[in-house]
């Protein structure tokens, strides 16, 4: 997949306030132009599992809609498996699978089984092959017990599994997952993650994952693309991102009696009674050195080394990059 200089602008009719505002708005020809996606470029190779991240309103969904052919770009090009998704919508549809966590592609009133049947027919999956794939997916996602339940009666976790299977029945080369774990409990989330990892590893399906749950990203993605205000902030490996924005670790020590801690090559960043957090550059100093320095000088009851969380890194990036723009507008 190749994306170059992608731009999407929306026009909104300018709201007119004051006398007869509603009526004047209705006849108005004045528009506000909102640039939801602003010059986004990236390439994704076959078999990659990429996290496409950004805060609410960053332009993630708009990008996904352009990649799937639902929206036409204002400028720039998208090529998915050699095709322009917006122009060759139906041909592109056969190559891709889409799961929108907030919406379902299943037929609401009918048993789950009927949705699978309809999708196998829609995507022209040969019947024996289709049945085999369905059996596999039913087993993998443990759906046997609710296969004959109408979709509207399924729990969110069951429905999500159904949606994932629905997107994989025609074995697309590319799978778009837009918040597939939203609203799910821990066990259900874990099951979805295992499934995503499985299809990526076993079938070589390229996966583009949008999520606000960074545990999804930590567990699944080697590469992430970070966008905000419609622009790419970061595109690269997850490990490199952590090294760049969080080249530190925290040592949390509990002292016998409350005190500040002063040691070389580590800074005290937080103190909460006897619990002190020390931050050190993991590329410059080894954890055991700091630990022995602290235990030599202070009466330590307990200690632990904490890895930086992706969440902290991401929120740091959002706030740093987000503020100047907000001031400007």
């Amino acid at each position: 997949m190749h994306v170059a200089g992608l731009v999407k602008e929306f026009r909104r009719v300018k709201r007119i306030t004051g006398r007869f505002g509603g009526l004047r708005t209705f006849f108005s020809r004045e528009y506000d132009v909102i640039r939801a996606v602003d010059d986004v470029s990236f390439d994704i190779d076959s078999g990659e599992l990429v996290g496409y991240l950004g805060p609410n309103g960053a332009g993630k969904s708009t990008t996904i809609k352009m990649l799937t052919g639902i929206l036409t770009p204002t400028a720039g090009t998208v090529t998915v498996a050699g095709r322009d998704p917006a122009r060759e919508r139906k041909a592109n549809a056969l190559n891709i699978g889409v799961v929108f966590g907030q919406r379902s592609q299943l037929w609401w009133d009918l048993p789950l089984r009927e949705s699978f049947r309809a999708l196998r027919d829609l995507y022209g999956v040969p019947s024996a092959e289709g049945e085999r794939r369905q059996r596999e997916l039913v087993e993998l996602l443990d759906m046997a017990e609710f296969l004959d339940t109408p979709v509207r009666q399924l729990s969110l976790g069951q429905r999500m599994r159904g949606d994932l299977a629905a997107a994989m029945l025609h074995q697309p080369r590319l799978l778009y997952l837009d918040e597939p774990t939203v609203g799910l409990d821990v066990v259900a989330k874990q099951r979805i993650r295992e499934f995503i990892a499985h299809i990526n590893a076993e079938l070589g399906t390229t996966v583009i994952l949008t999520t606000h749950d960074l545990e999804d990203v930590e567990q699944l993605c080697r590469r992430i693309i970070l966008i905000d205000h419609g622009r790419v902030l970061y595109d690269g490996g997850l490990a490199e991102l952590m090294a760049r924005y969080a080249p530190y670790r925290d040592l949390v020590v509990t002292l016998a009696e409350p005190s500040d801690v002063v040691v070389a090559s580590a800074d005290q960043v937080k103190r909460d009674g006897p619990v002190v957090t020390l931050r050190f550059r993991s590329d410059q100093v080894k954890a055991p050195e700091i630990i022995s320095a602290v235990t030599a000088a202070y009466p330590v009851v307990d200690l632990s080394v904490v890895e930086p969380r992706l969440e902290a890194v991401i929120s740091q990036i959002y706030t740093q990059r987000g503020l100047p723009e907000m001031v400007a507008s």
Partner: protein
Amino acid sequence: MITLRRVLSQVRIGVLTPWAYRTSTLLSLLVLALQIVLYSVVWRAIYAGRQDPVAGTDVHTAVGYAVLGLTIAAALHTAPFWSIQARVRDGLIGIDLTRPIGLLTQNLAVQTGHVLAALPAVAVGLGTGLLVGGLTAPTSAGAALGFAVSLLLAFGVSQLITLLMSLTSFWTLEVGGIGMAFYVVRTFMSGAILPLWFMPGWLQAIAGVLPFQAATYTPLAVYFGRPPGGLATALGVQALWILVLAGLCAWVWSRARYRVVVQGG
């Protein structure tokens, strides 16, 4: 082959969906039977004590028309608010655009399924008609044949009317009561309950320029030997409406698609 399979999969969805709401569907059959009984009672009361026909219609024709009209409407007048409107409201139309089938094809297939699902209404309608003694044979063999052809065309007109109406929901989503208004106008102007020949001239003229009559009244008029403008003209007008409505659907969808695809809904 694959295209046919795609279409049939959606016809199947259309057949199964109404029967997922069994009670409601069975109730609508009961309502149909009740309507037929009531109309036959009322027509007989109106005609009681008079020998001469009204507007060339005797009591048998009036009752027979009501039986057939209500039955045909129950099967062919598919509701436009099941598919596209609900999907636009819930933001699911985007998902439809990721399918390897066109939106119009998909919806026509689902509607065809709804018509097939409503076929029990034909048995109920004709059965009730038989019970109240309101079944009338077509006026001639030619009328029967013409009726069959006209009914097929009426199916096409009716489904395109439903589709066109549901496509307008891209714009009229917030307009309340429009569905009710559409239902009333369609039922009345299609001549499903009252034959257009009972209406005053100016009202007939209005009904004549609307597509609804081609979806119900025309086959009935052919059945009772009174095709408007002669059989050939009546069928021709129906065929013309199919072309016009299909063109309108394609045009409206291209506008709606622009709205969705370019402006993001």
